[in-house]
């Protein structure tokens, strides 16, 4: 069993490191800094941290002002609030107006599980993915957070970064060097490809072990950048393995699964089975139990792999 580490602690530490390395970076908060751990940046750089109160629309607009004046603002609040309450600000100024704002979406997916569906963020990727000019990054472990954060700061344009709240398995070592927009093969395979993001990467790797014990060779392709999607990696997976499963902590409508299906349907049709939460809200409860109950367990990835293989054989 891999070591477990807190994603939000990793984020707070990574933001402090970024602040040391880049004096243009400022952090803005909608008064949840002790939830998302941006308090660590506030403690290190009090003169570069601004709390605008419980006002997410203002949070994004104030960040736009910083961006247009040469700073690199990291705006912090819960993921679903960027995608819903502050959406018009994001569309008009980050996407249309090209303001170089970084949206750090805390408590993404079902990771704020006890607070329940009001705090879950299961539609953020599909909503924000439809906006021209948006970039969407989903780190899968604490080292990925630390490695991707400077890339996000350097990226020329707005970024939405989706962050898990909880302890997650550590997947990478210090040599990990991700590039925005470039998918990563964790494990080679012949029979099908599991394209995954965020917490579902570790679960897909465990699913691949189970499948291997059943004689099935599954490629694990981590798509930490959902937009711009690494189309070549998706098409290579479709071409070389002939079947695809997508796995994400998000609705199956329009997120990673939707993005992959759009590419394969148009350019290399193969069976695509999507793992995620169906078109419904979850409920309060322990994180693992909620993931299991709403279709994001390891067994669901394994079952989806079997379904994809069956569809491949009959197509």
């Amino acid at each position, binding site marked *: 069993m891999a070591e477990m580490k807190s994603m939000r602690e990793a984020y707070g530490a990574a933001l402090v490191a970024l602040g040391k390395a880049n004096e243009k970076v*400022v952090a803005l908060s909608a008064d949840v800094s002790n939830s998302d751990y941006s308090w660590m940046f506030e403690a290190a750089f009090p003169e570069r941290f601004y709390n605008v109160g419980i*006002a997410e629309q203002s949070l994004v607009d104030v960040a*736009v*002002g910083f961006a247009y004046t040469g700073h690199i603002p990291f705006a912090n609040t819960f993921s679903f609030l960027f995608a819903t309450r502050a959406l018009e600000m994001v569309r*008009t100024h980050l996407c249309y107006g*090209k303001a170089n704002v970084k949206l750090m979406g805390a408590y993404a997916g079902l990771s704020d599980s006890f607070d329940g569906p009001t705090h879950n963020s299961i539609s953020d990727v599909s909503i924000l993915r439809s906006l021209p000019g948006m970039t969407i990054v989903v780190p899968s472990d604490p080292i990925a957070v630390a490695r991707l954060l400077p890339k996000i700061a350097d990226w020329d344009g707005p970024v939405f970064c989706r962050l898990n709240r909880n302890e997650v398995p550590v997947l990478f070592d210090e040599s990990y060097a991700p590039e925005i927009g470039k998918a990563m093969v964790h494990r080679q395979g012949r029979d099908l490809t599991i394209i995954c993001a965020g917490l579902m990467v570790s679960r897909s790797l465990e699913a691949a072990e189970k499948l291997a014990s059943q004689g099935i060779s599954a490629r694990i392709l981590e798509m930490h950048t959902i937009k711009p999607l690494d189309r070549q990696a998706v098409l290579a997976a479709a071409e070389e393995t002939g079947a695809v499963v997508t796995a994400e902590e998000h609705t199956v409508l329009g997120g990673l699964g939707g993005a992959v299906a759009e590419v394969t349907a148009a350019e290399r049709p193969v069976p695509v089975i999507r793992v995620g939460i169906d078109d419904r809200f979850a409920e309060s409860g322990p994180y693992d139990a909620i993931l299991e109950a709403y279709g994001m367990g390891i067994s669901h990835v394994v079952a989806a792999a079997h379904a994809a293989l069956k569809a491949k054989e009959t197509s």
Partner: protein
Amino acid sequence: MHYHSEQLVKEITIRALQSRIDVLRMIKNNQTGHLGGAFSIAEVLAALYFHHLRIDPKRPDWPDRDRLLFSKGHACAMLYSMLAHRGFFDPRELMTFRSFNSMLQGHPDPSKTPGVEIAAGPLGHGIAIGTGMALSLRMRSAKPSSRSAPSSRASAARVYVILGDGEINAGVVWEGIMAAAKFRLGNLTAILDYNGIQQTGATADVMPTEPIGAKWEAFGWHVQEIHGHNVAEVLDALDRADEVHARPSVIIARTVKGKGVSFMEYDHRWHGAPPNDQQFAQGMEELQREVAAWQK
């Protein structure tokens, strides 16, 4: 009382009138655009662009320029006329307003039009964006020196936000108003185009805003209320706002929607309607007569 010469007041007044003529032509030409709210803000914009703002049309990206955020984006025909005559682009572009391939979009786009600072159209963004800019300018250093004190690293540039009175129906405006007061932004000035009319009727009926001055005051802003078509008053108020320290400042400019064309004044139906040939001719005649009277 501050002193501005009669000559300056006259020049700015005439600039406002001539830009109303531009706007009437632009909106007649393509039969699309917003006249009423453009006419009400003419003198304020002329005073800013032709006297008050520290800007350089040759360097629209100059880091230490004053920023004018035109938050009531629908009235942008007037903004475009001011920018063109101030030298940001060729005034011949004005007649392409809202045409295919034009640099002058139906609502402002900072990537297409030099001098435009923010996208606007969906209302309510200016104060909060201006708050971010004012904070950023206050702490920013173009070329930090190890010896410079933090205060000497701040930019002297100021931020001006122009918003409409219908616009302040939007909640994010008040979020921004609270934030600007919290951060004691003496380098931020808002000008409220208080023309009393919005798209479907009087602001007093649609969403009452009074007591408007007391509201801003209660939120921690310095408040001035002026006659927004009196150029001397506008110039004085802008100077006074610059002298307010440690809190943001608002100028409530009492204006007339559709100002300058008799049959458009005080009538919400001219919020977004284009003129026909006869209305255009009458409007042009009234505005040109007014220009001639000032030029005497």
